[in-house]
C-alpha cells in the first residue's frame, strides 16, 4: 500500500520545540487519516533545525465506500415531507427507499452509498488545514503576505513543502495543495552551508538517503548518538571522560543538521573555579560539554563543542573561536568567584532587609530570622546541635546575593557551601547551605546530617505555613511556590530519617512568627490534610495502597508522620493476608448493617452491650474476642508495635465470621436486636485501634 511523505521546510526552529512539533505532526496527520476512514500501518516523524518530516506508510489508495441509513417520514406523510426527504437523500422516488416496520407507524429509510474518495484528494484537503492550525507554542508572520490578515503563521518563515503519495514501485503523486502561496511539491534543500542546492525526492527512503548525501541527518536520535559517541571518543582518545549530559545532547541535536564534535581547551588556571561553575558556564552559555579526568574525578581543561559543518580547515578556526569565547566567559566566572570569596557570607545579610520575599510575608531578612528560630527549635528533636543549626540557618540563604549565583541561579546552595567552607565554617554548617534545599523532588537525595535536616525542615515549614496563612495554596495544576514539593520534602526528611516529630507543633510555632498569622483554628488541620494528600501521592507512586493513608488519618490526631507511615505499612501487610481480607469484609459488613439500622431507627447504637442479653454462644465468643483484641491491640499500639497489633486483630476474624454465620442480627425481640447492634458497633470500635476500616477500599 502507498506511503505519504511530508516535509515542512522552514528557517531555524527553536531546539526546544522540535520534538513536540514532530510528535504533533504525526498525531495530527494520522488522527485525521483515521477519522477519514484511512487506516495506516505505521508513521514516524522527525525534526531538524530546518525541517519537520513525516512518513506514514501503508495507507489505502481510497477511502472505503460509506453506507449510511437515513430515516425519512412516516408512510403517508404529506407530500412536502416526502419531497424534502427525496431531495436530501438524492433518491429519485420512494420506490428506491426501504420501509421500516414500527409499532408507532412504518416509515421510509434511505440507504445512501457514499463512494470513498481517493486518498490523494483527502490528503490535499486535510494537510493544509493541519499546517494552518499547527499548535506551535509561539508563532509569527513574515514577508509581503503578512500585510493582509489571515496570512499563515508558523514558528519561523516556512519556505517549502514536500507532499508525495504513492506506492513503492511507482513514481508517487505530488499531493496538490498550497498554503499561503507555498505550493506543495517534491523538492527541498540540503545542508545550509555544505549542500545548499535543490534535492528532488520521491518517497521517504530516497528522501532520507538523499538528505544524508546532502549532509543532513534527519533523525534527531541519530544526531544525538553521533554527538555523544564522537564526544566520548574525542575525550577517550586523550585519556579523559566525557561528562555526559542528556539534556544538553538533546538541545545540541536540535541546533545542527550535521553534527561534528570538536575538542577545545582552556587555560588550566581556570580549574581553580569549582567544577560546577565551569560546567554551568560552558554548558549554559556555550552549549558545550565538559570533560573529566578519570584519575582525579575532577574536570580537566577541555571542552567539546558540536559544530554544524565539516570545516575546510578541519575545524581549527571554529575551535579557536570557541576557545576565545569560553576564555572570556571563564574569566568572567573566575572574577565573580574570586570577588565572592572576598566577602564573608554574613556581611551580605543586611542587604536582605531591602529584598521582599513576598509582600505579605515580609523581607528575606525577616524570613531568615524565622527559619533560624525554627531550626533552633527543631534541632533538639532531630539530634542536631542547636548552635550549629542556628548558625547554618543564619548563613543558608546568603549565597543568593553572590555574583556566581546571580549568574547561575541553579548553583544556589552549592556556592553557599563552598563559600562557607572557604571562610572556615563547621563542615555540617557549610553542608546545610546546599542540603537545606533538599530533597527537591521524589528522586532527590534526602540529607542525613541532623544540622541540614533541622534547617531543611525549618525552611520548608516556614514556606508551607507562610503561604497557607496568606491563602496562596496550590490549586489544580498551579503551584507557583512549589508547596507540594515542600510538603513532600518534609515527609521524606521525616520518614527516610525515621524522625519522631510532632509536625503540628512545629507548624504552630512557625505560624506564631509570621507577620500575617492566618486562621489558627483551621490552618493546622488544613495543613495536615495537605500532608496526607502528599503522602498518598507518594505511596501511590511507590505502588503502595494510598487508601490506607485515609484510613489512618481518619483516626484523628495523627501528626506524627513516621507513625502514620508505619501504621499504613503494617495495615497493608495485614490486608494482604486472608485474615486481613476476611476481617475487613466482616467489619465492612458490620458497618453496613449498622448504618442501615441506624438510619431506620435514627439513632446510634453506642455503648457497651449487655452480656445478660447474649443468648447464643457466638455472641459470647465475639464479645470476648473483642475484649481480648481491644486489650492486646491497644497495648501493642501503645508500644508502637503495629505488626503485633495487626496479628492481634487477626484473632477477631473467626469470631466475626461465626457470628455472621449463626446469628440473626435483627432479632424479633427489640432488646436483643439492640444489643446485637451494639456488639457490631464494638467490632468497628475495636478495629479503630489500628485504622478506620470504613475508609479502606475493597
Amino acid at each position: 500500500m502507498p506511503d505519504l511523505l511530508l516535509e515542512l521546510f522552514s528557517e531555524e526552529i527553536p531546539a526546544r520545540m522540535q520534538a513536540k512539533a514532530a510528535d504533533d505532526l504525526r498525531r495530527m496527520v494520522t488522527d485525521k487519516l483515521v477519522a477519514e476512514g484511512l487506516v495506516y500501518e505505521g508513521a514516524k516523524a522527525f525534526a531538524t533545525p530546518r525541517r519537520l518530516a513525516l512518513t506514514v506508510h501503508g495507507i489505502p489508495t481510497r477511502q472505503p465506500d460509506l453506507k449510511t441509513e437515513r430515516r425519512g417520514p412516516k408512510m403517508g406523510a404529506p407530500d412536502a415531507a416526502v419531497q424534502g426527504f427525496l431531495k436530501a437523500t438524492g433518491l429519485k422516488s420512494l420506490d428506491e427507499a426501504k420501509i421500516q416496520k414500527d409499532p408507532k407507524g412504518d416509515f421510509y429509510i434511505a440507504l445512501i452509498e457514499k463512494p470513498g474518495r481517493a486518498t490523494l484528494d483527502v490528503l490535499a484537503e486535510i494537510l493544509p488545514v493541519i499546517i494552518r492550525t499547527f499548535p506551535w507554542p509561539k508563532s509569527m508572520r513574515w514577508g509581503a503576505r503578512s500585510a493582509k490578515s489571515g496570512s499563515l503563521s508558523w514558528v519561523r518563515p516556512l519556505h517549502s513543502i514536500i507532499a508525495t503519495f504513492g506506492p513503492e514501485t511507482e513514481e508517487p503523486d505530488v499531493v496538490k495543495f498550497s498554503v499561503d502561496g507555498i505550493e506543495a511539491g517534491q523538492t527541498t534543500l540540503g545542508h545550509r552551508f555544505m549542500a545548499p542546492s535543490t534535492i528532488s525526492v520521491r518517497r521517504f527512503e530516497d528522501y532520507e538517503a538523499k538528505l544524508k548525501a546532502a549532509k543532513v541527518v534527519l533523525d534527531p536520535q541519530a544526531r544525538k548518538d553521533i554527538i555523544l559517541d564522537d564526544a566520548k571518543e574525542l575525550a577517550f582518545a586523550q585519556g579523559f571522560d566525557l561528562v555526559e549530559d542528556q539534556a544538553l545532547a538533546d538541545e545540541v541535536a536540535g541546533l545542527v543538521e550535521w553534527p561534528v564534535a570538536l575538542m577545545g581547551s582552556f587555560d588550566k588556571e581556570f580549574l581553580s573555579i569549582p567544577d560546577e561553575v565551569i560546567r554551568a558556564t560552558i554548558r549554559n552559555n556555550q552549549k558545550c560539554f565538559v570533560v573529566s579526568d578519570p584519575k582525579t574525578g575532577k574536570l580537566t581543561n577541555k571542552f567539546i563543542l558540536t559544530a554544524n559543518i565539516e570545516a575546510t580547515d578541519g575545524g581549527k578556526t571554529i575551535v579557536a573561536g570557541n576557545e576565545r569565547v569560553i576564555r572570556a566567559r571563564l574569566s568572567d566566572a573566575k572574577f565573580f568567584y574570586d570577588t565572592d570569596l572576598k566577602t564573608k557570607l554574613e556581611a551580605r545579610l543586611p542587604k536582605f532587609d531591602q529584598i521582599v520575599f513576598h509582600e505579605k510575608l515580609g523581607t528575606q531578612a525577616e524570613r531568615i530570622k524565622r527559619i533560624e528560630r525554627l531550626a533552633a527549635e527543631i534541632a533538639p528533636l532531630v539530634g542536631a546541635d542547636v548552635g550549629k543549626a542556628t548558625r547554618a540557618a543564619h548563613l543558608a540563604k546568603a549565597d543568593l546575593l553572590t555574583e556566581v549565583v546571580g549568574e547561575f541561579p541553579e548553583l544556589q546552595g552549592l556556592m553557599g557551601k563552598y563559600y562557607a567552607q572557604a571562610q572556615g565554617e563547621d563542615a555540617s554548617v557549610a553542608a546545610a547551605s546546599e542540603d537545606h534545599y533538599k530533597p527537591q523532588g521524589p528522586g532527590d537525595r534526602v540529607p542525613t546530617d541532623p544540622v541540614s535536616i533541622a534547617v531543611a525542615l525549618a525552611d520548608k515549614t516556614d514556606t508551607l505555613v507562610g503561604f497557607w496563612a496568606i491563602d496562596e495554596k496550590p490549586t489544580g495544576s498551579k503551584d507557583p511556590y512549589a508547596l507540594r514539593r515542600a510538603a513532600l520534602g518534609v515527609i521524606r526528611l521525616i520518614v527516610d530519617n525515621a524522625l519522631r516529630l510532632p509536625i503540628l507543633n512545629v507548624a504552630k510555632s512557625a505560624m506564631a512568627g509570621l507577620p500575617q498569622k492566618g486562621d489558627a483554628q483551621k490552618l493546622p488541620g488544613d495543613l495536615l490534610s495537605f500532608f496526607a494528600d502528599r503522602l498518598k501521592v507518594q505511596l501511590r507512586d511507590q505502588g503502595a495502597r494510598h487508601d490506607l493513608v485515609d484510613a489512618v488519618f481518619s483516626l484523628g490526631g495523627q501528626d506524627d508522620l513516621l507513625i502514620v507511615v508505619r501504621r499504613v505499612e503494617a495495615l497493608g501487610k495485614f490486608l494482604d493476608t486472608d485474615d486481613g481480607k476476611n476481617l475487613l469484609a466482616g467489619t465492612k459488613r458490620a458497618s453496613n448493617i449498622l448504618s442501615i439500622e441506624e438510619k431506620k431507627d435514627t439513632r446510634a447504637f453506642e455503648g457497651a452491650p449487655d452480656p445478660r442479653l447474649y443468648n447464643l454462644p457466638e455472641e459470647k465468643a465475639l464479645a470476648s474476642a473483642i475484649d481480648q483484641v481491644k486489650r492486646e491491640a491497644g497495648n501493642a499500639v501503645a508500644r508502637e508495635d503495629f505488626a503485633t497489633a495487626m496479628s492481634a486483630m487477626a484473632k477477631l476474624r473467626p469470631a466475626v465470621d461465626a457470628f455472621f454465620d449463626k446469628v440473626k442480627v435483627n432479632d424479633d425481640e427489640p432488646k436483643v436486636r439492640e444489643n446485637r447492634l451494639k456488639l457490631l458497633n464494638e467490632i468497628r470500635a475495636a478495629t479503630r485501634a489500628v485504622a478506620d476500616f470504613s475508609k479502606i477500599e475493597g
Partner: protein
Amino acid sequence: MDALPAHMRPERSFQGFILALQRFWAEQGCVILQPYDMEMGAGTFHPATTLRALGPKRWNAAYVQPSRRPKDGRYGENPNRLQHYYQFQVIMKPSPPDLQELYLKSLAAIGIDSSVHDIRFVEDDWESPTLGAWGLGWECWCDGMEVSQFTYFQQVAGVECAPVAGELTYGLERLAMYVQGVDRVYDLNFNGRDGADKVTYGDVFLQAEQEYSRHNFEYADTAMLFEQFRMAEDACRKYLAAGWKEGGNQREHLMALPAYDQCIKASHVFNLLDARGVISVTERQSYIMRVRELAKACGEAWVHTEAGRAV
C-alpha cells in the same frame, strides 16, 4: 575586495569594517542613513526602525547607531563592556524571503567565511517592554559567539506590524574584535594604519568611557534628570495632542516625529537614573510603563501620518 587598499579591509580596520557593511546593504537597495542625533539605548529606537516599521509602505534602510547603556560602563577597565558602543542596524519591510541568505552574504562581505566558521541561528525571542514591541528570531552565533540579533517584528509601539519587517542588529565592536583577532576592544585598529599612523579604538573612546562612567554612576544630576523625565513626558503628550488634525473622514497626525523624540529622550533619562541607582525595583516597572505609553501613543500617531498610513 582585492581592489580595496589594505587599510580599508574589514579585517584590518574598524572603519573599513563599517564601510563594508554599508556598501553591502546599499547594494541590497537599502538607504544608508547616518546615526540619529539623539542618545538612545539601542539602534531599534531610531525612528527609521521604530516608526518606519509601522504601516504598509516599503522601507529598506541601514545605519550605524551609537548605543548608550549607562549601566554597562566599566571606567574603561573591562575588555568588552562599554557604556557607548556602535550597533549596525538593518531594517527591511516587508521582510524579503531571502533575508537569512542576505545576512550570511553580509558576513562574507566582512570576511566571515562560512566554510571555516560555524554559523548558527539560535532561538531568541526579542521583546522591548519600553517600546511595546516584540518579535521572533534568533541570536546569530559565529563559532560560539553571539554576533548579531535577527528579528521578525510582530508588534512595535503596540501596533501590529503589517507587513512584518525584518531587523538585523550587528554588534560592531564585538564582530570587529573577532575579525581582527583582538581580545580587548580598546586594541581594535580603528583606521587600519600601522605604526605612528595607527589609531586604535582606545585612542578614540577610552577617555570617553572613563569620563562617562564617572558621570553615569557618580555625578549625573539626578534632580535634573527626574525633572527632564517629567518634562520630556509632558512635551511628548503635548506634541501628540497638538498634532491631531481632523479633516474630512480621515484622522491625520502632523507631529509624530517630534513627539517621538521626546519619548527617546525620556527613555535615555530613565536609563541614566537607573544607572545612578535612584530608582527602586517597584518604581522601575512604573517608569518602563510610562515610556511604553509614550511609545504607543507615538506609534498610533505615526500610522496616521503620510509615511505611516496606507496609501
